[in-house]
């Protein structure tokens, strides 16, 4: 059943209200230790990142400035369970334009890394990671394509050292992570 406007507005207001219990005061320090995220506390909310973000132009929910503010406030749970963190297309315009040298796209990457650590990631990343672990390539290159390369006079594709790849997946923790998400 469709909710009436008033109920909807009430729910949105409730959703937007921040509770002290939602705040993890240490979160900003946790994030600022991750590579590229060191300057997260320097953000003074000018909004250049959002204004120049190509994704924000076509999506009402993706707002890089808001994500950085949420990090500063320590809204860890709201951030890590939020699908919008997967919308950054890593064009790096925000990084180049930020007057405070905040690595916005890198902070979004740090949020994604923390989410995958909890065992959640979009299906497409599971596939890419599993392809890389199995073949070295991000996509499963069909046998037909390999045959066509020969016909086109192209050299055969270099192969991956799958054994070494597996060792690297294990030592960096990727294997465990993929096990956790069921790949």
């Amino acid at each position: 059943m469709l909710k009436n406007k008033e109920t909807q507005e009430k729910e949105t207001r409730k959703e937007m209200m921040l509770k002290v219990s939602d705040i993890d005061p240490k979160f900003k320090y946790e994030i600022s230790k991750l590579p590229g995220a060191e300057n997260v506390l320097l953000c003074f909310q000018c909004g250049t990142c959002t204004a120049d973000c190509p994704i924000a132009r076509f999506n009402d929910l993706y707002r890089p400035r808001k994500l950085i503010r949420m990090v500063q406030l320590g809204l860890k749970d709201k951030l890590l369970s939020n699908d919008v963190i997967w919308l950054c297309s890593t064009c790096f315009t925000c990084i180049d334009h930020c007057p405070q040298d905040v690595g916005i796209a890198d902070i979004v990457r740090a949020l994604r890394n923390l989410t995958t650590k909890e065992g959640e990631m979009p299906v497409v990343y599971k596939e890419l990671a599993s392809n890389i672990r199995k073949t070295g390539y991000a996509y499963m290159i069909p046998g037909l394509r390999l045959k066509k390369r020969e016909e086109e006079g192209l050299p055969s594709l270099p192969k991956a050292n799958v054994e070494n790849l597996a060792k690297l997946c294990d030592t960096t923790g990727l294997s465990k992570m993929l096990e956790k998400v069921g790949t």
Partner: protein
Amino acid sequence: MPESKYLLFLGCVIPYRISSYEISTRKVLDKLGVELVEMPEFNCCGFPLDPINHDMMLTLAARNLCLAEQQNLSIMTLCNGCFGILNHVNKELKEDKKIRGKVNEYLKKIDMEFKGTITVKHLIHVLAQDVGFEKIKESIQKPLNPLRVAQHIGCHVVRPAKYVGFDDPENPTILKKLIRITGAECLNYMDEMECCGAPIIGVNDKIPLQLAREKLDHIRTVGAQALITVCPFCHMMYDLNQPRIEKTFNEKFGIPVLHYPQLLGLAMGLNPDELAFKQLRVDASKILTN
């Protein structure tokens, strides 16, 4: 002396579905006397793994860099994504001892060590800096005028500026110069630096399709007969996905999208079949009659 021999880093998406880029690049570089050496072994540059596990991205990239170091050759990539990652990691590991130590700890498991002895270049760096505009100019046999095109250089070959340090990310001119050498006119258009959106198409296809539609619209407005790219992901968005964009937005574009080496190859007098024009999704025959 500028280098003339590189280790070719093909990446994943080119052998998967964009071999026209590889075919035309090999043809053109051969004419320019650039020697390409195949990777002895390969694994993905690491780009798709950065969102999942930053350490694994660093390690995968570093492993490719080590393979190049063993050959004592600099890497040349065709893909902006591969360039962005490999160049960034190469510079970071050269400068930051702490990260380098950590990555080398991982690499120890496979008896490898990052030493920091090579550089990473994209095809357009090789053309603009090492081959040089003069030499390219000398190779032109069939200037392409009055062809009018637009360029899309893509993001990772110019951003983030502090890691790339090549061309002006707000107003990149290198690809434009490379295009003008062929005799074609390179038109300016609105929002030239707008991202193609390809990296998120597996998560959300609506946004990238809208971004790509807008780019096609902008270049149509200025009367460009073709779009020129230097990245397989960008190419995929505008060429392979163009019919899908047309269907989604009920709009007809029919704008051919060429890899830069295809354009250069034409101007060198190579024939379109040699340059794999037939593999393009959007028919480019109408610009070939010029």
